[in-house]
């Protein structure tokens, strides 16, 4: 079961959010239940990113004091009583985050696939998408409002994650 999926860019902005559990209040969403890029999840997104960001800086600090042998000590998942958060950070500073139940241990390949086959194809290689979702410096420190609203991206993400939802 997947509860939600998030993408954050290197300016700490949430640039995409998909939530499958919340009731769908105002829109007629062709994709079934849940919300996409909804305002009501703004706060959750900020908290989620804040937690991952600070945990990650802790692990970075720990690893730098451990040894010269620099293996990447980014966090991969966080478990709580009810769910598990899987994360992947790209070298370009993007965070791909998946919130799931305990059924499956490892979602890193799923995240990698979303990045390489969906995000790169429909956002990076699409010249009609911005290369940077923060349009000006005011939007750079987590204040950005621009989201990925591109139907090819949404449709293929939906098609890819659909079998894992239940």
């Amino acid at each position, binding site marked *: 079961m997947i509860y939600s999926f998030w993408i954050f860019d290197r300016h700490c902005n949430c640039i995409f959010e998909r939530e499958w559990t919340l009731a769908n209040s105002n*829109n*007629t*969403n*062709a*994709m079934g239940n849940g919300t*996409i*890029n909804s305002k009501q999840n703004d706060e959750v997104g900020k908290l989620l990113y804040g937690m991952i960001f600070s945990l990650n800086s802790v692990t970075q600090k720990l690893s730098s004091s451990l040894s010269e042998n620099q293996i990447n000590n980014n966090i991969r998942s966080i478990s709580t009583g009810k769910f598990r958060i899987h994360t992947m950070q790209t070298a370009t500073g993007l965070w791909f985050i998946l919130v799931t139940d305990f059924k499956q241990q490892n979602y890193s390949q799923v995240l990698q696939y979303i990045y390489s086959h969906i995000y790169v*194809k*429909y956002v990076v*290689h*699409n*010249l*009609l*998408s*911005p*290369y*940077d979702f923060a*349009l*000006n*410096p005011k939007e750079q420190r987590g204040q950005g409002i621009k989201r*990925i*609203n*591109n*139907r*090819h*991206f*949404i*449709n*293929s993400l939906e098609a890819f994650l659909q079998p894992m939802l239940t």
Partner: protein
Amino acid sequence: MPHQRNSSIQNPEALERQRQYELFQESLPKVNALVYQMLLNEIIPLSSHVENQLQTIPMEEFSEDQTESQLKDLSLEEKQVSNPSSSDQLIYKLSQLADEDENEFNNTLKRVRDIGIKLGTRLTNLLVFTNNVNLNFKEMDLLLIMKFICRDVWKQIFGKQIDNLKTNHRGTFYLIDYDYALIQDFCIETNTIPSQLNEEVITSKELKLVEPFLELPVGIIKGVLLSLGYPLEEVICLATFIDKPREKIRNGFPKGISFHVQITKPNQQQ
């Protein structure tokens, strides 16, 4: 172009030449298709930017009517801190221009087309004509030239052939490419979730955004015809969107492209 007899493929001499040609093709440096496509696509926002700058330079004082919107976008304050002209913004601006300032819009399209023409003449000379034993331009009529564009030129530049060629045998041709390579991953970014919006509105906006990108292949077709002796003013070439056949509709761009080519004085060549 070396002289060549028809149907001489069995001939050992011709076979040798064919082999040489293949070796030559292999020896050419290889370029990453993605990078090449991105560069080709950047021509459009670049042309738009150049045209935009040209419009503003000669004016000492900004006149109100034309540049008020530009002033807003290019005000000094903002220019120093951010980049107001990233490619995607330029493309969206360009499609607005179609309604607001037809002159500048058409100049931009012409600029793109001219680049296509230069690319067309040079690339075909460099990559396609050189050492290609399968081509004999002496006996080529217009139909063969069109076939040459569909097969060899398109393959060299876009990595695939034209899907369909139609003609009325009187100098009018339709070259149909159902998945024109450079725009396959293009998709409009909207302000809210696309499923909340009217699909037709989105599609028509998207087509409008993509339209300038079609001037590049138009220019390339004209450039190839120019290098084969059809002057630019005798060739009409227009690109339009057409529906894809059902089996081709998948994730790519929703429309195919039809290039309408017309030679106004077809008999002068013979």
